[in-house]
Each structure stands twice: as structure tokens, then as C-alpha cells.
């Protein structure tokens, strides 16, 4: 099962085993990780599951859809080149070892 590390703004780290096919967002919700809000439930209608992907891992993540690009304009914390909606990061073998940084705020 791919391991994903969530780094909180204060530096604390949570490591989860994310089942294949489950999103980084959903895994955080199920495991009660603060810092992922996910208001729309993964419909790409909000930007409250925003994460920053470890810069050198970006090429392992799936391409951004137009929906995701549009919603990334609504992040409550600064949008950076490594900003992603974690609902779109669905666990695959390639994502094993992924590190995502949680923003200061989601709303």
C-alpha cells in the first residue's frame, strides 16, 4: 500500500498507508488528519483539500485537469507551482513515498 506523508505547518508529520484507488484527500479525512477540509467531497468545486507536493516528486503525480487548475485559483493559502488538490492525487504504486505539505489554512 502506498505510504503518504502529511507534513503539518508546524512540522509534525503523519504517515498513512493509502489504499490503491483512494485519494490523498479521502485518506486524510478517514484518518482524522487536521488540515484537509474537503468541503465538496472531491468534486473539484472547492479548494479546501489543497496541498503542496514535495517539489521533486511533482513529476510522479498525475497531470492537472482543467477543473483542478480552475479551482486552484480559490486556495485560501498561497497557490504555488507545487499546489495540488489532494482529491486528485489518487494512490497508485508510483505515489508510494509521496510527501505533501499542508497549508496554513484551507478556508
Amino acid at each position: 500500500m502506498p505510504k503518504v506523508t502529511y507534513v503539518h505547518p508546524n512540522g509534525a508529520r503523519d504517515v498513512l498507508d493509502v489504499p490503491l484507488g483512494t485519494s490523498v484527500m479521502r485518506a486524510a479525512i478517514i484518518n482524522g488528519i487536521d488540515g484537509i477540509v474537503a468541503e465538496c467531497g472531491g468534486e473539484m468545486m472547492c479548494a479546501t483539500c489543497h496541498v503542496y507536493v514535495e517539489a521533486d516528486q511533482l513529476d510522479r503525480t498525475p497531470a492537472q485537469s482543467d477543473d483542478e487548475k480552475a479551482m486552484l485559483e480559490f486556495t485560501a493559502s498561497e497557490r504555488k507551482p507545487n499546489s495540488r488538490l489532494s482529491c486528485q492525487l489518487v494512490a497508485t504504486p508510483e505515489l508510494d513515498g509521496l510527501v505533501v505539505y499542508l497549508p496554513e489554512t484551507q478556508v
Partner: protein
Amino acid sequence: MPNPVAAILGAGQAGFQVAASLRQEGFDGRIVLIGDEAVLPYQRPPLSKAYLTGQTEVDDLWLRPAEFYAKQQIDLIYGDTVTSVDRPERRLRLTSGLALSWDYLVFASGARCRPLPVPGAELDGVMMLRTLADADILRQRLDGAREVVVVGAGFIGLEFASVAVARGANVHIVEVTHRPMGRVVSEPTSRFFTEAHIRWGAKVSLGTGITRIIGHHDRVSGVETTDGRLLPADLVLICIGVIPNSELAHEAGLAVDNGIVVDGYLSVGELAIFAIGDCASFPTPFASGRVRLESVQNALDQGRCVAAALAGRPEAYEKVPWFWSDQGDLKLQIAGITTGHAEAITRGDPDSRQFSVFCFKGGRLIGVESVNRPADHAVARRLLAGDPRLSPEQAGDESYDLRAHTRSLASR
């Protein structure tokens, strides 16, 4: 007030949000979240979409896991119903016999499906869709269904129709008005979706009502229309809108007019009682007069607004409304409230299946409906949050850069 008690009536998306936001806001009193369904708070939107197809399973629907409520010290009472609210005494009673004193009361009691008042509506195989329990039965029934009649062409009806037709059922959509989603979208968008459903294989009868539902051995077998046709059916979904759950508020002496009447702060006038979400009728800068909105956005933003008020930071509720609907491979996104527009300008070519309709009233942009065009939706939400200053000509001109327009407003 030492250790105040906030009682939240209704554990849907709105009620959940108040409870969660209250803790984030640092509310140090007791939070009691009361829901009448016997399950944890969950998301409703997938019930007419991915949950019916099996793409989403029940564990994906929970808003938060059970441990969340204990950790946040939210007393979640579910599978119980509030039977009375005593305002002077600040008490409420539940079906189970439990009684509770409160200092703050939030009605987040939602809405229920409007029944179709025709003979035969009680037959087996005639269903409505609101709750997880409804969706579980519908999902099973859909498996064996061959002839499906959908009564009412709103979001839920059309979303369900697109799922049913993709499952290979013969689907007939019957709508009493002359256009689908007519209450919430413009004519061009309505027409586009009508044609899309026909292309996918559904039959669509507009301007058509139902006179009765016919059965055989208590099982539905057909639907009789106002124009005298008999449509075969082994599954009928009635989705003709909802009725707000405002009876308790009414009995408690609160004003009710298509929902519980609240002011711009979502309070009923006394700062201890609020109503939010599907059950609340509120004034908004995005429409003339009061509105009652049924949407995730409305539930969440109103929940947060009330939580902030209870934490001592009241602010008028003025969030841009937004909505979405997934039908087949089409994603409809709406920003603002387009009802009552005078002018509808289409940007992009509907034949390309990517376009938006910009709706104006008195020369001012009031809302935008986008189909498979998320960038327009994003722009629209930003524009509507301020003074849009967009002309119909600019909206219709694809060479006019909307993002640059939005940026120039932001930097002013």
C-alpha cells in the same frame, strides 16, 4: 455565560458544519448535534451520482469518521428526532424522551421530498431520493429495472436519469413545466441538457403531468400522463422538489415562509436562534427578496457564519452562491442566482459541449452557468464576489480575456 449549550437540530452538511466550525472558533460550551437518520453525518450529493453507480461506497460518504465527534467533544445524537422546542424555557424534547436545555439553537433541519399527490404514489417501486436509506434501496432497484420513469426534471431527476440510462434501462423523463431545471437555469442551458438526455437515449416529455400511477399486485407497472398516455414502468422516481422542515420552528412561534425566516445574520431576530441550509429563508444581495437555497455551498458557508456569530464575531451572510450537477459526462457549474435574468449571453459553442451562459439583469451580471468550462466558473465566482463590471458584449466575445478583466478589478 458559563458553559453555554449550543443545540443543532439536524446533522446534515449544515448542522455538521456549525458543530465543526464552533470548535475551530474556540467555542468552549457543549455542542449537541441531533440528527434523525440513524447514521453518521454524510454527504448527500453523491447519492444521485457516483453512489448509485457504485463508484462511491458508503465509507466514502461520511463527512468525518466516528472518532472525530468524540475528539472534538461534539455530542452527536443520531436516530432521534426533536419533537418540541420551548423558546421561553429554552428547552427541547426528543422522541426518545430525552430533554435538553439550550442557550443557542440552530435549525439545520433540512428539507424532505415533496410527495406527488396522485393515486398510486404508494405503490411498491415508486420512490423518492433524499437519504442514504433511499439511495440504498434505489441502487438495488435500479439493478433489475427495465422501464424507468423519472417524474420531475430538476438536478436530482436528471442526474438519476443519466445514471439509469447508462445502466441500460429505458428512461422516460416527465416534467410538468416546459423546461428542465427551469427554476434554476436559463433557457439555453435547459435546452442543451434536454437535447443531451435525448442523445443519451432517454425520452423526454415536457409540459406533461402525471394523473395516476398504475400497479399490478401492489407493484408499479405504469404511469398515466395528463395527455392520456400510459408509460410502462417498473421503477418510478418522484423528484419534484422539496418541502423545508420548518414545522418545529412554526410551532415554536417563529415566522415561516417557504422556510424559517431569518435576517441577514441568519438569526430569527433573537441572537440565540438561527436557521441555516435547506430550511432557511434569508435575504441575499444575489437576488431580489428572500431566497431558500438547497446546496452544499449554502449549507457550509451558512454553518460557518453562525459558528462565527456564536463565537462573538457576527458578520452578515453575503457569500456568492454556487451549485453543481453531474449528468453523464457533462458538468454543470453555476455561480450566482440566474433566476429572473433579462439577458442570457452564451459564450462558446454549445455544440462543442463547452460553453457558459452569462445572465444579466438591468445590465449587471447576476450569474453564470458553465458546462464543462471550469475556468469560466472560477472567473464568475470571483466577479460576483465584487462589482463585476462586465458588459454583455464582453461576456459574449470569446476574444475578450475574462481573467484579465477579473485581475484588473482586483487590482483597482
